[in-house]
């Protein structure tokens, strides 16, 4: 059986003793949708976090803006939190859906997203 699907889509975490900022950053790095990086000065930066380096002298993330501009690097020290605001393209049971459609005779052209922008 397929595990129940879990996604962080829509999550708005607040860092605290049980949820350190570093953990939120790791989850944002692993997330395949857009997020909104909230800076300590209140600025909000929507976009895709594609890298994080916690081993660097000054740990940082790298992201592309929501319009694809970038990349820009942001030190951990400037980040207050990250919200999981964009759709998670890795979530979903598209394979199961495809199988179900096929089994019920509805197979044919696959109408799922094909990774094209």
């Amino acid at each position, binding site marked *: 059986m397929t595990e129940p699907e879990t996604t962080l889509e829509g999550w708005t975490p607040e860092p605290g003793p049980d949820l350190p900022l570093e953990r939120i950053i790791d989850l944002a790095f692993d997330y*395949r949708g857009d997020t909104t990086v909230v800076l300590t000065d209140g600025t909000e930066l929507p976009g895709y976090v594609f890298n994080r380096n916690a081993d660097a002298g000054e740990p940082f993330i790298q992201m592309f*803006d929501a319009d694809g501009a970038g990349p820009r690097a942001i030190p951990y020290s400037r980040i207050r939190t990250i919200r999981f605001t964009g759709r998670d393209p890795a979530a979903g049971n598209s394979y199961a859906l495809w199988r179900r459609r096929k089994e019920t005779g509805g197979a044919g052209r696959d109408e799922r997203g094909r*990774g094209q922008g």
Partner: protein
Amino acid sequence: MSVPAAQMWTVAAYVLRQKLRGRRRYPLVLMLEPLFRCNLACAGCGKIQYPAQILRKQLSVEQCLRAVEECGAPIVSIPGGEPLMYPEIGRLVEELVRRGKYVYLCTNAIQLREKLEAGLFTPSRHLSFSVHLDGRRAEHDESVCREGVYDQAVEGIREALRRGFRVTTNTTLFEGASPLRMREFFDEMMDLGVEGMMLSPGYSYSKAPDQEHFLRKTRTNDLFARMLSKPKRRWRFNQSPLFLRFLMGKHDYECTPWGNPTFNLFGWQRPCYLLQEGYAESFQDLMETTRWERYGRKSGNAKCRDCMVHCGFEATAVNETFGSWRGFVETVGVTLTGRF
């Protein structure tokens, strides 16, 4: 074995040069991903799930060539995404061939015929279309979640062969694959006239939609042992025979994650083609600052435990061939007898 002698010699000379220089870690195949866009959405693929603005982006040819120079590997594999959707694929391939690289253009071949008819490519011993086919018609269409793709790929293969191109196939095997059907598939590909076939078990990408059908180690050994026992003389494989023996359970290799370094829109991917644990800005940075001891079976890393994928272990097998008399003799033996 079906790797052309000139290509084999280039790889052998390169490996021996690295050994003479005392380089402990060196790349063998650069995995160059100029884009993530694809015209398929296969169940076992974890490469294309990105927001639209990322899928619209692509590397420039100049960025690609800089990465090729930085890396220095003799072979460049161009996966993706679907590389035939890269608008500058013709120029990129031309530049790589001009630099003497052996190029494997990994494609689902849906657009292959169209691109060939448009005159985008010129036949060269340095260029091979590596067409993704996961088995016979039913298995492949199931694997790519769309019917009719097998027929399109075969049509593309025929056209490429007719025009004098090198064509190989690359096949990823998942749980439930039938050894008998795969043997029929090998016959089918040989009948088509492809130069050779490449096989690999799938990797359990955490982002892939289908998580149920990835092979575990013992199942992989069992499947490959049954599939490749008593191989027909006419079957040709475009990969290291020692790697195939490893898949059959006859060797217990450790992963060489730096063997197939990956460059894409985000930079140099740590630590390998399959795992995404961060990106380095330069190839040197990748090689020098990646904590390699965290990866591979011996590391105890759960993500590496069941992995037997070509991008980690084929480099190990090639190193075994050129790094020890035993490996060399074994490789020659398999090549001459055709027995795995």
